[in-house]
Structure formats: structure tokens, C-alpha cells
């Protein structure tokens, strides 16, 4: 809604609430006579009313965005209150008395001040992510992958990291509501059980419908199975807007059963991704394992062999940009292209009606040749958001190449109750409209927000006699349901889940439900004979048999909890052969028609994380777009539609309309507009409500993935994005240092010229392993190129090495850093003006023609330069070097001149321009890492190499009278990285991993020509380019380009 520019927004608001306009006089009147704290509280209350925001945009049009912005406003109000309190004591502040609240009975195993680690799992529709949770005094404060688990090996991802903040979100629903009034659980139980008793007695549950989120819990499936016995006519349906319908439909067709495909990238030399974002986050099932395996074959560690990735995709993803050869195709052409590959492999007929450009044909030919040459050692991965045809083609190609059983195996689905969710939803709506539904229980899904517009879910829902909504937020669905049950977060409740390979993890609660939330297990249990059994009991019951079979149940149960998973529960491969694999390709769309594709947001998924500030603020990969979503398109389409970036356009698809601002994306397929789901929430909470536009408004049940023949109209409005990176086109002539084409990125060209990014093809690397230090300005000055003697770091010397070959730009590291280092969320407006606080960012550079660029991802945090330019200019010595070579920032000494930031060539310092940290919200205090200072206003901050972890390790080592071991200190970013791109350690220890990486010929320092002597170095990228294809397409090698 507020995606619209302020003016539009204002009109809408005043239109909807005539006579509700608040004037400045009224505000003054309301505040009159109230002073001090009360004054601000009243202002705060006022500020929560919509009229207030409207008033502001009317009275102060230019500043309104800042005031309305929830985060900024909160900061302002709290600051104002705090500054009143501080008014008298500035200068000679004395600390206020601090109370101590000791335990009554302290738990035996609790040592206050020492974190404890527990294993659990993050249940996610694409497969659970096993976790190891760091808990301080029983408050979970950091989530990380379970290092023992075969799927993740300790890595995690951005969304999982973000669920920690979701736990402590103050906007979570805190009560059970009946028609908006607070009730308690027994009242609901009485009503629900009363109904159940009736249903059981008559009709076997006729008229009782459950609409659930994708089921990942075997226990939930078991509970339902038991309930079904008593209520044979009750229905359990699943719907999530982002689902696996295509994959399931294809496998049903090919194998006659719902199966999951498991790709073994450790076996594959050639990989083809068909719109598959398998390197871009857990939106793709099995992400951590796929990315880890893919990267493992690119380390060039003692070998000069590596895998090769081809990507055919319609919008620009990190997966495509990491590919050696990327082909941008309209989404509707990916299927036919795959069919053409299949045809060439099988010798069958190419799909009719499709003609490929010269370039596409060359790509196709080379790709087929490469696949054939690597038969059995190649793999084709279809994208989850592609049509069943693409999945079917992938199954067929893999079969034709003999990959099945080798690089791809098929197993039982992670979802114990697989179904085509689109059909499920249609069934439900039909029954609702037919008046068949008495009780509709919606569990952890939000169809009012996310169901296809043409199905008009909200009207259908109103036809149910009784509706129950279980969810962590009082969201769009919860708002209209009769009953709202506040849901428990997964860190608060017992459950279980399978990771994508099938391995079972027990989900154990880390903390008592903050607001007494309930889980779906609690609801279903009401239908069983033992309705008072807790979720804990239900989960134990599910695994009792299996765990008892292997010995003592209690021992095995404890072991399962301790390990975080049940060993050997991965699905075995099914020996199946695809039968019906005819790929039916629909007729091609008109060549210049515009099609719209819908993709889950990489940060917010389907919108469920919309109120997680970390994820809202996290710049999306590729676009670096923060807080908003956009109608993404190529530069070519931009010209074709005669629109410019930031123009708000109206997109009409199948009669549905949505207003969206335009963002150009390099490498995007022409004639395609990508809309990401998950924004435009109305009832997400204070952070997420009103951010971006709701792409579901244009998504219909007939075209949930690709919508053809979209109409685009310019509205004449503008919308300023909060993009964290500048993107200019290089219009310089050759003599002025440009390339003269006018189609390249200025940043990209400059980056290569400046030696910030260095890379080579595999052939070039084989010829010249030292390529990273060839060329002008590519070698560091000698250590003693100074008037003064260098410092000697003779004990520990901490350093970091980042493998540019492995980094896939998935952002997991950034969110991990948020959690570990108490980084503040600053809000949309502040990001827009460039004040985001992430200590770590992933710099994305586009090389070459922006229509088909190559991209480079470079994680960039404080480089801990030995000759740090920042330190020299600090007038108070607030940033200094430690004897171990850390560039340490002493927050409490900082007066905030910001000189250090100006003098930092890497611009990695972050400044608290306003009071960004939330000192007020109680629940957020529980989340903070107690080992890291929460930074206040006016203080500079930056990456510390997780100095708190270094100190803890040193204390442990000193206590044990030993050296810190290699690998003992793991930085938060390193820990989260799915591809092990980041390595940290003691560079003085020759045998340490990091020292070995730094000794590689490919290792180089960014801007080392300045003699800053950065402690973080990068291992230059090597691309296994298909020389034949490159030659055919006339692509230059990096040495020529750079």
C-alpha cells in the first residue's frame, strides 16, 4: 500500500477514512499539559494511529517518510524520552543503581556467564535445517547449523538466522482471541472439543477442514493419521503460496509417485541449472548440501580440476551469476530449451514453434556436447519455480545421460503427506463456496494474504461457520478468523522435522513460550483419545518404536536430542525409472509480449519473515535492494517499455493489477518482469506492514509461476528505492578510461581496472598460477616500504582468507553477523540515505555488457589492515591495533568524528548517526549477545573479527595452558557460510588453514597497493570456462577483458 509515493498514499488514506483527519492543532491539544515522560508516551500512542502518519505527510511532506518509518520513529521517540532523562546529567554521568535478580533455585547445570549449546532444527517447507543453538541463561542468542549433521555441516542461511529475531519479535501475537477479544486456551479447548465431540458422533468429521502449512513434521503426520481414524470425513489440506507443485506434478507423471530428487554435486563435473536457484538460499531444497558440494569441487586445493556450471534462467540469481556460462531466457522458453536439449540427446524432434537465436544455438550445442562428454557425471537441476515441463525435461535428460542413480537419486518426499497444494486450495475453496465447511482450522499459513487473487479466499472463508487461525502473528488471516490462537515459535515448542535428505531432527524448545503460544501439534492432539498429551509426548510417541529398536529408548532419545538428529534416518534412494517423460511444450508466446514471473523473496520467502527487521534490511543478492520489492526487468525491457528506474508502473495480468516500481537488473531476460512475493503485507507487524507492494495481487491460480501477456502502464509516479549500492552505467569514452560501449557498469569496469576483483579461466590459471599478481598495481609493496620500521606480530596474528571461488553471495554471513554482534536495524529511510549498519556486505560487481554480464561477489568487512589508515586519523585513539593485529574499535572511547570512516579505503565502518539500537523493547534485550556492547548514538562500529570469540578462546586456552588451536575460533560469518568461503585463524601458525590459503598463489589483498597490509585476503576466482563455447560466442578471457 505505501509502496505508492507519499502523495498517493495520503489520498488513499484520507479516502478510506473521511472525517478522520488529524490536524496539527489537535495533536497539540492532545499533548497539551503533558510533560516529560508522559508527553512522549502520549506522542508515542498518537504516533501509532494511522491518522498521525497522514497528518505528518500533510504537514511535513518532505520529512514524513522519516517520521512514518517505524524504526526511525521508534528511535526518535525513545531518544527524545531518553534525552529528557539525560538532560541533567550529561557531562558527569553517574551510573544508576543496577539491581541483581538471583535465581530462587538455580538449575544445576547452569553456569551463568557461560553459554550452553543445544541441538534443534529449523523446520522449513523445503526441508528442515538442523541447528545448534547458543543459549545464554536459557535464552537462545545465536542460531547456527549443526556441524555434525550430514546435510549442513554447520552452515546455515539468511532466513534461518533471521528466525532468531522472529522469536523475540515484540509484534508477535500474544493472546488467544475470539472475535478480537482475549480468551484463554481452556476456553478454546472447550469450544473446540465440544465441536469435535459432535462431529465424531455424527458424520465422522464431515465439515471439519484443516488448512495447514506444508507439513514437515512426521509427528504431525502421525497425529493426523490417528485423527483420521476417528474422523474419516474431516479433511486435511495444505497450502503455501510457494510450494513444490511443479516438482511433485512432474514426479507423479514420470514415476507415478511423489518423489524428491537428491542431486549429488560431489559426483558431478557438469551442472546445468534450469532456473534453479540452488546456490541462492533455502528457497531451493537441499541448498546447504548442494552449495557445499558445488563449492568443494572448486577449491583447487591440490588439484587443478573443477566442475562447471551452466545456468539457463529468466531473472538474475546468484546461481546464474556464479555459472561459467549463463543464458538468459524468458521463463516460458526454459522448458522448450530443455526439451531442445533432450531432443538433441535423444535424437528426437525439437519442440515445435521455437526458434533459437544464433547465440542460443551455439550455447545449446556446446552444452549438449559437454553434457554428453560427461554422461553419468553431469546433472540437470530444474528450478522450483519453473513449470512441471521443466522438471519433467530434467528428469528425462538426467535419465538420458545416465545420471539417474549416480548424480541424481530419487527418494521419498520430505513432506510426509505430499500433495499438489494448488489443487488442495481449489478443493477447499470449492467446498467453502458450496457451504460444506463448518469449521475451518488454518494452521501457520496465511491464505488471506497469499492465496491467488482470482480465488477470492477471504469471501470463501467467510462462508465457513467457524474459523480458527493458528499463527505467530495476528496476520491478515488471523484478523478475519473467528478464533486466533497465538502460535509458538519453533524455538519454543516440541516438534520434529526432516532435512531434505530425510534425516530426522527432533525440534526441542530452547525457551518457554514467551507468550504461551501453541503449536499445530496441540491442535491436532485435541482430536485424539489423549487430548491433553503435550507436543513433547506426541513427538516422543512418534519415535519411540524406532529409537527402542536400537537399544535403550531413553538413551537413544537423549542422544538424538544431543546430536540434533537421528542417525541413519536419511531416505534411501529409490530405484525407480522414469516412465512417462514426454515433455509437452506449449506454443510459444508472442515474441515481444511481456510475461511476469513470481518468485519467493530471498529474504522474506512468501512473506512470513516480513516483520523480521534483519531480513527486511538485508540487501537482496544481485540487486542490493533493501526493504522494498520491485518490478525487476532488463535494461532492454526498460527501453522497450519506455520507463525508467524508479517509475511506478501498473502491471495487469489476467485482469489483476498491481502497482510496482521498476528496477533494472543486469542480465535479466528481456520481456520478462520478475515480481518477488512477500512484501506489501498489511498485518505483518510494525516493521513489515506497508513495505513494498503485494505481488500476490497479480497472481492467479491459473498462472502462479509464469503469467503471459502482461500489460504495463506508466503511472507517472516515482518511488525511491532503498538500494545499498550505487549502479551507474559507464558512459566514458575510451580515452577517459571507459570502454566506449555505454552498456557496461561503471563500478564493474573500475573494479577490474583497480584490481579489486582478479580472476582467470582455468586454462589461464594452469598456465600461470600466479595470475593474481600479474599486471600493473597487482602486487603489494614490500613489507618494509616505509620510513618507519614495521611492527612485529610475533605471537598470534589473526587473519582471514575469503575464497572468491566459493562465495555464492547468499547473505547467510551477514545475518549471522547481525545476530552475533547486536547490529541495529535502522529502517528504510536510513538505508535509503545510505546508513545501513551491516558490518559485512557482499559487494556485487557486474562485468561486461549489462545485458549479459559476468558477476563477482566479494564479501567485504573490515580488512584489519596492519597499517590501518583509520587508526592514524582518530583523534582520541578509539580505534587501535592490538598486539595480535586486530584493528579494534573501542566504542566507549569514540566521540564520533567519523574521520576513520572517511579514511577507510574499504568503507567498511558503520556509524550510529542516530540512536539505532533499541534500548527499550524488553523482548529484544533477551536476544542480545551479552558479550558484545550495544552501540549507542554517535559511535562508530565495524567488523571486529568477532573479538568476543577470540577473547573467549584465548581465556580458555590460557586457563588450559595451551595455544589457541586452529579452528577453535570461528567467526560468525565463517560459521554460517554454506560453501566454507571464509577461513579465519592465526597466520603466524604455518600449519593453520588460513596460513595455507594465504600462501596460495591466487591469494591477494584488495587495494594492497596502498600499503595498508590488510589481514583479510582473497583467493582469486578461477572459472572453468568452456573454451569452445567462449570462442564461439566471442567472449574474451578475463585477462583480455580486465
Amino acid at each position: 500500500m505505501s509502496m505508492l509515493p507519499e502523495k498517493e498514499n495520503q489520498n488513499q488514506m484520507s479516502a478510506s477514512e473521511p472525517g478522520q483527519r488529524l490536524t496539527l492543532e489537535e495533536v497539540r491539544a492532545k499533548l497539551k499539559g503533558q510533560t516529560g515522560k508522559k508527553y512522549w508516551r502520549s506522542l508515542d500512542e498518537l504516533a501509532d494511529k494511522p491518522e498521525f502518519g497522514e497528518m505528518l505527510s500533510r504537514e511535513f511532506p518532505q520529512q514524513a517518510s522519516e517520521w512514518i518509518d517505524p524504526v526511525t520513529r521508534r528511535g526518535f521517540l525513545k531518544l527524545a524520552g531518553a534525552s529528557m532523562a539525560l538532560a541533567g546529567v550529561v557531562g558527569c554521568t553517574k551510573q544508576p543503581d543496577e539491581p541483581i535478580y538471583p535465581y530462587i533455585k538455580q538449575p544445576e547445570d547452569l553456569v551463568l556467564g557461560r553459554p550452553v549449546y543445544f541441538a534443534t532444527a529449523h523446520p522449513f517447507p523445503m526441508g528442515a535445517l538442523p541447528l545448534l543453538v547458543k543459549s545464554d541463561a536459557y535464552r537462545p542468542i545465536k542460531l547456527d547449523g549443526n556441524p555434525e549433521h550430514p546435510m549442513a555441516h554447520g552452515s546455515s542461511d539468511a532466513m534461518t538466522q533471521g528466525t532468531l529475531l522472529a522469536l523475540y519479535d515484540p509484534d508477535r501475537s500474544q493472546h488467544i482471541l475470539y472475535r478480537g477479544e482475549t480468551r484463554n486456551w481452556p476456553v478454546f479447548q472447550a469450544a473446540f472439543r465440544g465441536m469435535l465431540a459432535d462431529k465424531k458422533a455424527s458424520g465422522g468429521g464431515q465439515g471439519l477442514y484443516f488448512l495447514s502449512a506444508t507439513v514437515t513434521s512426521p509427528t504431525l503426520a502421525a497425529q493426523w493419521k490417528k485423527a483420521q481414524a476417528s474422523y474419516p470425513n474431516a479433511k486435511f489440506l495444505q497450502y503455501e503460496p510457494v510450494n513444490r507443485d511443479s516438482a511433485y506434478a512432474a514426479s507423479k507423471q514420470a514415476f507415478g509417485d511423489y518423489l524428491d530428487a537428491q542431486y549429488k554435486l560431489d559426483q558431478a563435473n557438469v551442472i546445468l541449472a534450469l532456473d534453479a536457484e540452488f546456490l541462492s538460499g533455502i528457497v531451493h531444497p537441499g541448498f546447504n548440501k548442494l552449495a557445499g558440494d558445488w563449492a568443494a569441487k572448486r577449491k583447487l586445493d591440490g588439484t587443478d580440476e573443477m566442475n562447471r556450471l551452466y545456468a539457463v534462467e529468466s531473472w538474475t540469481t546468484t546461481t546464474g551469476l556464479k555459472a561459467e556460462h549463463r543464458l538468459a531466457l524468458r521463463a516460458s522458453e526454459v522448458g522448450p530449451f530443455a526439451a531442445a536439449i533432450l531432443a538433441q540427446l535423444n535424437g528426437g524432434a525439437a519442440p515445435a514453434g521455437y526458434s533459437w537465436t544464433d547465440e542460443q544455438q551455439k550455447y545449446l550445442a556446446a552444452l549438449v556436447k559437454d553434457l554428453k562428454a560427461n554422461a553419468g557425471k553431469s546433472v540437470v537441476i530444474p528450478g522450483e519455480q519453473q513449470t512441471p515441463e521443466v522438471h519433467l525435461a530434467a528428469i528425462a535428460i538426467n535419465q538420458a545421460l545416465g545420471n539417474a542413480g549416480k548424480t541424481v537419486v530419487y527418494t521419498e518426499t520430505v513432506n510426509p503427506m505430499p500433495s499438489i497444494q494448488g489443487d488442495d486450495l481449489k478443493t477447499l475453496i470449492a467446498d467453502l463456496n458450496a457451504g460444506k465447511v463448518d469449521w475451518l482450522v488454518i494452521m501457520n499459513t496465511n491464505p488471506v494474504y497469499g492465496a491467488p487473487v482470482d480465488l477470492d479466499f477471504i469471501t470463501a472463508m467467510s462462508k465457513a461457520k467457524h474459523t480458527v487461525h493458528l499463527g505467530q502473528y495476528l496476520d491478515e488471516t488471523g484478523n478475519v478468523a473467528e478464533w486466533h490462537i497465538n502460535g509458538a515459535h519453533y524455538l519454543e515448542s516440541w516438534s520434529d522435522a526432516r532435512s531434505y535428505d530425510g534425516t530426522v531432527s527432533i525440534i526441542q524448545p530452547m525457551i518457554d513460550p514467551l507468550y504461551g503460544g501453541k503449536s499445530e501439534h496441540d491442535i491436532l492432539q485435541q482430536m485424539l483419545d489423549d487430548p491433553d498429551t503435550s507436543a513433547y509426548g506426541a513427538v516422543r510417541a512418534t519415535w519411540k518404536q524406532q529409537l527402542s529398536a536400537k537399544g535403550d529408548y531413553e538413551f537413544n532419545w537423549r542422544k538424538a536430542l544431543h546430536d540434533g538428529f537421528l542417525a541413519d534416518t536419511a531416505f534411501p534412494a529409490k530405484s525407480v525409472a522414469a516412465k512417462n517423460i514426454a515433455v509437452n511444450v506449449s506454443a510459444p508466446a508472442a515474441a515481444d509480449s511481456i510475461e511476469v514471473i513470481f518468485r519467493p523473496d530471498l529474504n522474506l520467502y512468501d512473506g512470513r519473515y516480513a516483520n523480521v527487521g534483519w531480513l527486511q534490511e538485508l540487501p537482496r543478492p544481485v540487486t542490493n535492494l533493501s526493504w522494498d520489492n520491485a518490478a525487476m526487468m532488463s535494461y532492454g525491457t526498460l527501453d522497450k517499455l519506455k520507463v525508467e528506474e524508479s517509475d511506478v508502473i501498473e502491471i495487469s495480468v489476467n485482469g489483476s493489477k498491481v502497482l510496482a516500481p521498476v528496477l533494472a537488473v543486469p542480465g535479466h531476460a528481456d520481456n520478462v518482469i520478475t515480481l518477488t512475493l512477500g512484501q506489501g503485507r498489511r498485518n505483518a507487524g510494525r516493521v513489515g506492514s506497508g513495505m513494498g507492494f503485494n505481488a500476490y495481487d497479480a497472481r492467479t491460480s491459473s498462472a502462479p509461476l509464469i503469467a503471459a501477456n502482461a500489460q504495463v502502464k506508466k503511472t507517472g509516479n516515482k518511488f525511491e528505492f532503498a538500494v545499498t549500492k550505487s549502479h551507474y552505467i559507464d558512459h566514458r569514452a575510451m580515452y577517459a578510461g571507459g570502454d566506449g560501449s555505454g552498456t557496461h557498469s561503471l563500478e564493474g569496469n573500475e573494479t577490474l581496472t583497480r584490481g579489486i576483483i582478479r580472476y582467470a579461466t582455468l586454462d589461464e590459471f594452469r598456465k600461470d598460477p600466479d595470475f593474481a599478481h600479474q599486471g600493473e598495481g597487482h602486487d603489494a609493496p614490500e613489507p618494509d616500504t616505509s620510513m618507519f620500521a614495521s611492527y612485529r606480530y610475533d605471537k598470534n596474528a589473526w587473519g582471514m582468507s575469503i575464497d572468491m571461488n566459493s562465495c555464492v553471495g547468499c547473505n547467510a554471513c551477514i545475518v549471522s553477523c547481525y545476530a552475533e554482534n547486536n547490529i541495529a536495524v535502522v529502517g528504510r529511510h536510513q538505508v535509503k540515505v545510505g546508513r545501513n549498519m551491516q558490518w559485512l556486505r557482499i559487494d556485487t560487481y557486474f562485468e561486461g555488457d549489462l545485458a549479459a554480464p559476468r558477476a563477482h561477489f566479494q564479501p567485504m568487512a573490515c580488512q584489519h589492515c596492519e597499517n590501518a589508515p583509520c587508526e592514524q586519523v582518530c583523534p582520541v585513539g578509539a580505534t587501535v591495533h592490538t598486539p595480535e593485529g586486530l584493528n579494534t574499535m573501542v566504542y566507549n572511547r569514540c566521540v564520533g568524528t567519523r574521520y576513520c570512516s572517511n579514511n577507510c579505503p574499504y568503507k567498511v565502518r558503520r556509524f550510529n548517526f542516530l540512536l539505532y539500537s533499541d534500548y527499550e523493547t524488553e523482548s529484544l534485550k533477551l536476544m542480545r549477545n551479552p558479550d558484545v556492547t550495544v552501540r549507542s548514538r554517535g559511535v562508530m562500529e565495524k567488523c571486529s573479527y568477532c573479538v568476543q570469540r577470540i577473547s573467549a578462546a584465548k581465556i580458555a586456552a590460557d586457563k588450559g595452558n595451551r595455544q589457541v588451536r586452529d579452528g577453535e575460533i570461528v567467526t560468525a560469518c565463517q560459521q554460517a557460510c554454506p560453501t566454507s568461503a571464509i577461513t579465519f585463524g592465526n597466520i603466524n601458525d604455518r600449519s593453520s588453514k588460513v596460513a595455507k590459503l594465504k600462501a596460495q598463489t591466487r591469494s591477494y589483498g584488495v587495494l594492497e597497493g596502498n600499503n595498508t597490509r590488510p589481514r583479510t585476503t582473497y583467493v582469486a576466482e578461477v572459472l572453468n570456462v568452456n573454451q569452445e563455447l567462449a570462442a564461439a560466442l566471442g567472449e574474451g578471457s578475463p585477462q583480455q577483458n580486465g
Partner: protein
Amino acid sequence: MPVREGTYGLLAEFDTPGELVRAAKAAYGSGWRRLDCYTPYPLEEAAEAIGFHRDEVSLVCLLGGLLGLAAMYGLETWISVWGYPLNIGGRPYYSWVAFMIPAYEWTILYAGLSAAFGMLAMCGLPSLYHPLFNAPNFRNGATNDKFFLCLEADDPKFVLDEARKFLEDQSPVSVVEVEY
């Protein structure tokens, strides 16, 4: 201190600087030592005439400057090398190049303050009350357009009548006796 009573001196008023200088020369020539001239602007010739050739302001200024230099340079060195030595971006503890600048500024600061306050102190300022201000014509002229010669009673040569006679011989506008 007891209040001084009696005559402070004899004050002769002149219209032009030339007359004043001539009179002053004459007085100095005839052995007057405790005498002073008062002019509305600096008149070097008059000072020469009464034998005031050099002052010590420059010396005080130099000493002050040296003190400032030593103080700041010493402070910087002590702080950075002994007080709390910190590794600042790999720069040496004893970064004399950088230290020169504040030291230079303090040299000027101390020198300037010494010159200014030294000058005031040597002149005996502030002296808000001065016997000369008792003279009826002094304040009217001395800071405006008149020139004065004062023969002070402290001079061993000072005998009221002789002094008056001497002054009147210099063709002043007036001669008045100034009381303490």
C-alpha cells in the same frame, strides 16, 4: 601599603609631537631621569628622547615559546611512548613527524601569550587608578591629540619650583602639578 600623599610630578602639555620631543630631550639632557612622555599614538622619538631604548618583551616571548615547545613535545612523547603506548595503524610510538605540529602550535601560543601578558606586566598594567588621571587636562588630551611630559617627584633633581620653571621654559600649553 600606606597611601602615598603629595606631589606625583609636574605635567606639561604640548600641542605637537615636535615640541614634546624637544622638551623631553632638554629634560633628559639636563639630567632628569624619572620622567615620562604621554602621547596618543606611539612616538618613538619621545622614547628615544627620554633614553628608553630597549625592552625585554622579546626575551619573555622567546622564553615563553620555548616553554610551549618543550611542554607540548614532551607531553606528546611521554603519552605516546611511555604514558599509554598504543599501536596506531603500525605507526611508531615515537612519531616525531606528527608531534611537530601541535608542538609548533603551542610554541606560538605560549610565545604570543607571553609577549602580550609580559608586555602588560612590564607596563604595570592594569593600573586603573593613576595619579596622572588627577590632572585636569590629561585625560582630555593624552589619548586624543595632546602630548605630555611629566617630570616625576621621585627624581632626586625634583624641586617643584625649579621643575616648573624648567617646563615653562619649554613653551608648553600648560604646566600642572599632579597629586598622588
